[in-house]
């Protein structure tokens, strides 16, 4: 897994106009997927829901990018927008460039050729995402057959190879079983086998481990990592679980209210968080290594905002202990500040956060 050193000089902090481009890639290769100024709105009876608001990021070959945020922060909508799978009434703006070509709003046929072949998706609930009336082998074969015309025997061999690759024992027999005959962890592996069937360039994993218990989670993440070393796919790991991100991802985007809060390497996000929201999230994690008797877990005050009435200025300001409630935080949306190379925080006070007074 590639990781970048935060070698940037904090004194040359630059304020970038969104959509900004992080200066340095974790590898020299151009990004396989770049999202620029992505906004997704859903008109509803109560008003317009801004699910994603001016989001920009890059995904590089062979890297794992974690996208973290609480429910309703726009993680899943982002992934659906990339694949063009949002319902018709969604209003999508911005750019999604796959290998340089904008695929946002591309023709259905173009998108169909990409989906499952170049950009594949792993769903959260494998039981729901597998068709109950077909055998697992059948479905994996189907996901190949959609894109490639292979003779039946080759298809079958490939299915067995894939099941073996994701660590399912006796793959030949298992291929002939139905999803309900699989255990939860095996179903998720089968889902992964399905998504990597065509060696995609980008693998979007939407909460791949959320429905699983912790030991199976670890196994599935392990499978993902092994797959990546073989296929060199880029993985977009969408999760609300900071632990999962810490273990697997190289870079992390923290999202809040459909916007980016912070972007950086795993180490930067976990050890030098420069956004109050990231700090709040980390502080609210239960820690085994800090034994404090009778201490309650930290919690972020307030509620996540409604995406119809997003707070003015910085969306996090009503809950932010550092916020300047008379000034900038309420009146102006914070720009993305690059604190060091590749480490950006969308906070007016990102650079001086440690010196700021904390609201009681």
């Amino acid at each position: 897994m590639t990781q970048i050193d935060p070698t940037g000089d904090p004194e040359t902090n630059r304020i970038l106009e969104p959509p900004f481009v992080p200066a340095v890639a974790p590898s020299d290769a151009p990004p396989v997927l770049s999202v620029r100024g992505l906004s997704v709105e859903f008109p509803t009876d109560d008003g317009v829901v801004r699910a994603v608001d001016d989001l920009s990021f890059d995904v590089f070959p062979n890297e794992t990018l974690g996208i973290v945020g609480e429910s309703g922060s726009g993680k899943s909508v982002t992934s659906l927008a990339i694949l063009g799978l949002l319902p018709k009434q969604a209003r999508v703006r911005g750019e999604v460039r796959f290998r340089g070509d904008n695929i946002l709003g591309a023709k259905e046929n173009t998108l169909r050729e990409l989906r499952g072949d170049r950009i594949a998706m792993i769903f959260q609930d494998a039981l729901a995402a597998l068709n109950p009336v077909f055998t697992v082998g059948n479905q994996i074969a189907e996901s190949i057959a959609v894109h490639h015309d292979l003779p039946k025997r080759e298809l079958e061999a490939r299915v067995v190879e894939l099941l073996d690759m994701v660590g399912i024992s006796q793959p030949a027999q298992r291929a002939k079983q139905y999803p309900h005959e699989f255990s939860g962890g095996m179903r998720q592996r089968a889902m992964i086998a399905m998504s990597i069937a065509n060696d995609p360039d980008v693998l979007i994993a939407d909460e791949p481990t959320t429905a699983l218990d912790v030991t199976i989670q670890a196994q599935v993440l392990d499978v993902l990592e092994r797959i990546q070393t073989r296929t060199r796919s880029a993985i977009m790991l969408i999760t609300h679980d900071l632990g999962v991100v810490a273990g697997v991802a190289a870079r992390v985007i923290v999202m809040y209210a459909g916007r980016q809060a912070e972007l950086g390497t795993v180490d930067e996000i976990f050890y030098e968080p420069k956004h109050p929201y990231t700090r709040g999230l980390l502080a609210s994690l239960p820690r085994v290594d800090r034994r404090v008797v009778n201490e309650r877990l930290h919690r972020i005050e307030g509620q996540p905002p409604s995406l119809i009435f997003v707070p003015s200025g910085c969306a996090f300001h009503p809950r932010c202990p550092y916020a300047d409630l008379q000034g900038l935080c309420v009146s102006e949306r914070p720009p993305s500040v690059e604190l060091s190379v590749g480490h950006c925080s969308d906070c007016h006070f990102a650079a001086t956060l440690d010196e700021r007074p904390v609201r009681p």
Partner: protein
Amino acid sequence: MTTSSPETMAAAELALPPGAEPVARSNWQLFRRRFFRHKLAVLSIIVLFFLILVCFGASWLAPFPKNQTNLLITPGGPSAKHWFGTNEVGQDLLTQVMYGGQISLKIGLAVAFFSTVVGVVVGAMAGFYGGWIDQGLSRGTDLFLIVPELAILGVAIQRLGRSDNSFIIVLAALGWMYVARVVRGQVLSIKQKEFVEAARASGASGTRIVVRHILPNCIGPIMVNATLAIAAAVIAESTLTYLGLGLQPPATSWGILLNQAESAVTETSKFYLVFFPGAFLVLTVLAVNFLGDGLRDAFDPQSEHGSK
């Protein structure tokens, strides 16, 4: 049992009890096993086979030639010579029932086939594409549903000629709406399922999603409706013919036989004139319905229905 190396054992799923091997059976084996668990369905398929064999083999099996009248014998009830008795003109009822079944069964099966095909196509398109396609198709379906069926049937049969083929055309044209409605509802609910979204995310086209992912999940209700359509068509033919709007002798069907048995309504001693054609009709309808039940369960891989 294959011997497992320590590595594969370690990789083996925790859900498996130690030593247990996943048993792989082919789809056909599983299908057969689930179907045979349904005792009534198995019995029904035997009955249906028997009926089809007896009716369509009438040329060889029937004790008397078709429509042969014998005015010399007294019309009477079941006897050793005439198992089902004879009617007023001395026709052997067993022979007539066998020949009559040819037309009744042919109409039933053909109508079920055509109305199911039309209904599935219309329902799947309406349910999957939604919008104005759904509006158009659903309103069309409603229009066909409110048509006074019997009157249209009567008139149309007169126009097209009183043949079994015109029956098939008209009954199919008036019978597809039920399947269409059921399929539309099924498609609407299944299209919301995550596996449909997963199929879309894997790059499948709309048609492919409908044919490969959605319709196989509707096979149960479709089967049940198809079998109901067989029963409905057989009954519709009998009804119309009984009312005198349908087939006419020398053609013969179970409906015609019932029509001719009118006298039995007043004379209980002639019960056999109604009983035997009626029994064949009821037997067919029942068997077909049980068969539908059995098929529905057999098509559902998750079904655990035992022989209750």
